[in-house]
C-alpha cells in the first residue's frame, strides 16, 4: 500500500503559541459558542427535531485540542459532538442542515445531531452510544501507525463514558500497542444528571491512566491555553511514536444535558452554573488576548459579529436545503462494491 504523504502539524514538538494560534483558538471558541447558542434557540422554537446535546461552556477543550490537528488527524466524538466538528473546521451550513434533517446536511439528514460527521476532515462521527468512540479511535490510530502517516487520533469522551467497558479495553490496547492516540476526557462533572461523585469513587479520571501504563494528566478545561499546551504535548508525544496519553480536562456544561433548559428536574443549583460561568473560557481567553495585546475588544466584537453573520448565513442555507426524498430512504445502507479484482 502506498505510504501517502499526509498533512501532519509539523513534526514532533507542539507548535509554538504564536499570536496567530491564540487568535485561531479564540475564533474556534467563538464559532462553537455562536453555533450552539443559535442551535439551542432553534431547538426551542421547534425547528430542530430529536435530541440536541449542546457544548456551551466546554469550548476551550475542543478549540485547544483541534488547533493542533490537520484534516488527516482523526477525532472520535460523542453525543455532544457539534463543538468538536465546528472546531475541526466543519461547514456550519451543512451542520445546521444536518440538525434540521435536510438533504444538504453532512449526513443527508440521515444522522442528525448525534451522528454528525465529516470523514473528509477526519471527524469520525458524533455517536449515540456512550463509550463507542474509544474502540473506533484506536482503530484509526492503528491505521495511522500501520500506514506510517505520522497522524494522530484524538478520542473525546465524557466522565460518564469513562465508566463504560469500551474505554477500558481501548485504553489497554492503545498502551499495549503504543498507538498514536490521545484519550481526551471532557469531565464536565456529570453523566446526564448524575454527578461525578455518584458515578465513580475517584476524583480524577486521569488516575485511570496508570492502570494501562500510560501517562495521565489533568488540565483546567476552562483555560484554552492550558488545554492547548497539555494536549499539544500529548499529541506531539503520539506523533513521536511514544504512545497514548490520557488527558482529563475539567470543564462544565452550562445548558442542560439535552437542549437548553432541560425537563425541569432539578439536579444542580443555578448558583453552581453561575460560579462556573465566572470562569467562562471565552471570557478568560479574551481577557488574556487583550492583556497580551493580541486582540483588542473591538477586534473581538468584530470577530463575534462576523461569526454570527456566518452562523445566520449557515442557518439560511440549512433552511433552504430540501428535505430528503423518500427514494433516499434505502440509499447508503451498503457500499456498492466493484467486485472481484
Amino acid at each position: 500500500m502506498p505510504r501517502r504523504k499526509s498533512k501532519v502539524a509539523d513534526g514532533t514538538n507542539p507548535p509554538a503559541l504564536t499570536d496567530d494560534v491564540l487568535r485561531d483558538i479564540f475564533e474556534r471558541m467563538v464559532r462553537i459558542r455562536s453555533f450552539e447558542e443559535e442551535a439551542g434557540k432553534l431547538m426551542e422554537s421547534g425547528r430542530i427535531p430529536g435530541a440536541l446535546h449542546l457544548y456551551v461552556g466546554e469550548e476551550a477543550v475542543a478549540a485547544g485540542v483541534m488547533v493542533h490537528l490537520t484534516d488527516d488527524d482523526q477525532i472520535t466524538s460523542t453525543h455532544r459532538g457539534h463543538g468538536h466538528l465546528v472546531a475541526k473546521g466543519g461547514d456550519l451550513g451543512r451542520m445546521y442542515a444536518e440538525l434540521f434533517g435536510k438533504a444538504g446536511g453532512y449526513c443527508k439528514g440521515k444522522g442528525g445531531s448525534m451522528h454528525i460527521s465529516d470523514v473528509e476532515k477526519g471527524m469520525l462521527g458524533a455517536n449515540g452510544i456512550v463509550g463507542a468512540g474509544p474502540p473506533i479511535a484506536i482503530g484509526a490510530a492503528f491505521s495511522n501507525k500501520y500506514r506510517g502517516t505520522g497522524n494522530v487520533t484524538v478520542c473525546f469522551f465524557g466522565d460518564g463514558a469513562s465508566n463504560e467497558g469500551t474505554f477500558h479495553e481501548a485504553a489497554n490496547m492503545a498502551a499495549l500497542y503504543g498507538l498514536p492516540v490521545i484519550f481526551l476526557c471532557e469531565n464536565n462533572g456529570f453523566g446526564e444528571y448524575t454527578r461525578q461523585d455518584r458515578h465513580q469513587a475517584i476524583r480524577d479520571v486521569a488516575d485511570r491512566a496508570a492502570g494501562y501504563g500510560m501517562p495521565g494528566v489533568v488540565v483546567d478545561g476552562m483555560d484554552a491555553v492550558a488545554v492547548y499546551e497539555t494536549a499539544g504535548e500529548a499529541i506531539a508525544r503520539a506523533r513521536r511514536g511514544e504512545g497514548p496519553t490520557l488527558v482529563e480536562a475539567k470543564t462544565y456544561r452550562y445548558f442542560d444535558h439535552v437542549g437548553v433548559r432541560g425537563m425541569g428536574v432539578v439536579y444542580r443549583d443555578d448558583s453552581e452554573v453561575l460560579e462556573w460561568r465566572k470562569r467562562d473560557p471565552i471570557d478568560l481567553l479574551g481577557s488574556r488576548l487583550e492583556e497580551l495585546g493580541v486582540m483588542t475588544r473591538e477586534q473581538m466584537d468584530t470577530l463575534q459579529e462576523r461569526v454570527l453573520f456566518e452562523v445566520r448565513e449557515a442557518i439560511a442555507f440549512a433552511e433552504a436545503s430540501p428535505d430528503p426524498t423518500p427514494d433516499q430512504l434505502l440509499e447508503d445502507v451498503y457500499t456498492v462494491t466493484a467486485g472481484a479484482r
Partner: protein
Amino acid sequence: MTAVESTTARSLTYVEAIKEAITQSMREDPSIFLAGEDVALYGGVFGTSRGLLAEFGPERVVDTPISESGLVGMGVGAAATGLRPIIEIMFMDFIGVCMDEIVNQAAKMKYMFGGSARLPLTIRTMAGGGMNMAAQHSQSLEAWLCHVPGLKVVMPSGAYEAKGLLVAAIRDDNPVIVIEQKLMLGRPAEVPEELYEIELGKAHVVKPGSNFTIVALGRMVSESLKAAEVLSADGLDVEVIDPRTLQPLDTATIVDSLKKTHRAVVVHEAVRFGGLGAEIAAQMQEEGFDYLDAPVGRVGAPFAPVPFSPALEREYIPNADKIVAEVRRILGKQV
C-alpha cells in the same frame, strides 16, 4: 391469574402506569429494587420512576454509572442470591453493550446449572422510533431476544398492558424483558388502581373480527385498530390480536383466529427482514396451512437503519396506512 378489571379504573398515561406497577410491586415485596442510569435522583429520563427515590430510599432505587454490562450483571447476581431486581436499560438500542449478560448469563444460568438457579429478574427498556432520535436510539430488537431460550419477552400495547405485564414480569421467577415504546409514553388508558397482573404467554383479542386477522406488536396494535376501521369500508371485519407476550408466544390464539378468517397480516415496528413477524408468519402457514386463502403478509420497517430526518422517518415507520396497504395487497393475492 388474569387481570381484575372490575374495580376502580382511572385514566393513567403509559408512563404513570409503569410507575404505578413498580411502586405497588415494591410496596408489596421488599426484595424488589430498581437500578439504572438516572432512575433515582432524576426519576428516569422518561419519568417512569419519578418520586420512587423519595418513597423507597437510595438502597432500593439505585442510580448507576453508565455501565450497562455492570448493571445487568448486577441484576443477574442479585437475582441469583435472593433479590428481585428491576433493571432499566434506558434505550433498547443499548442492549448491544450488554447482550452477553442478557443472553449468555441471565437467559442460560438456570439451564446450564441443571435447574438449580432461579433468576427473578426484570429488565425494562424503551424501544421504537418516531421521535427523530436516529439509528442508535430508535430500534426495535425484540426478535433477537425472542430467539434466546430462557428469556421471556413482553411488549405492552398501552397503559393497561404496561402495568399488568410489568407486574407479571416482576413476579415471574425468570428473566423477563419488558419492551416499552417511547411514542406511547404520554398516551392514556383506563388502568385499575389495584395491583393486577396480565398472565404471561396469553395473547389478547383486542377486536374480534370474522374475515381478516391482524397480529400486531406493541404500539402497532393501535395502528392496526385504525387500519381495521379503514378496512371496514372495504367490507372487511378485521380481528386484531395483541400477543402481549412475545416469548413464549401464544400461537394457539393466533392460529385459531386464522382458522376463522383465512387471511392474516403480522405487524411490527422492527425491521421486517428477520423480525418476529417472520416467526409468526412461519408458524401460521405451518399450523394453519389448510385454512389459508392467501399468504400471510407482513408489515415492518424497511431494510435500513432508522433515519433521523422527520421526512424520512415518517416513511420508515409502519403505521395504519401501511397496514391497510399490506392487507389490500394480501387480498389481491387470494387464490
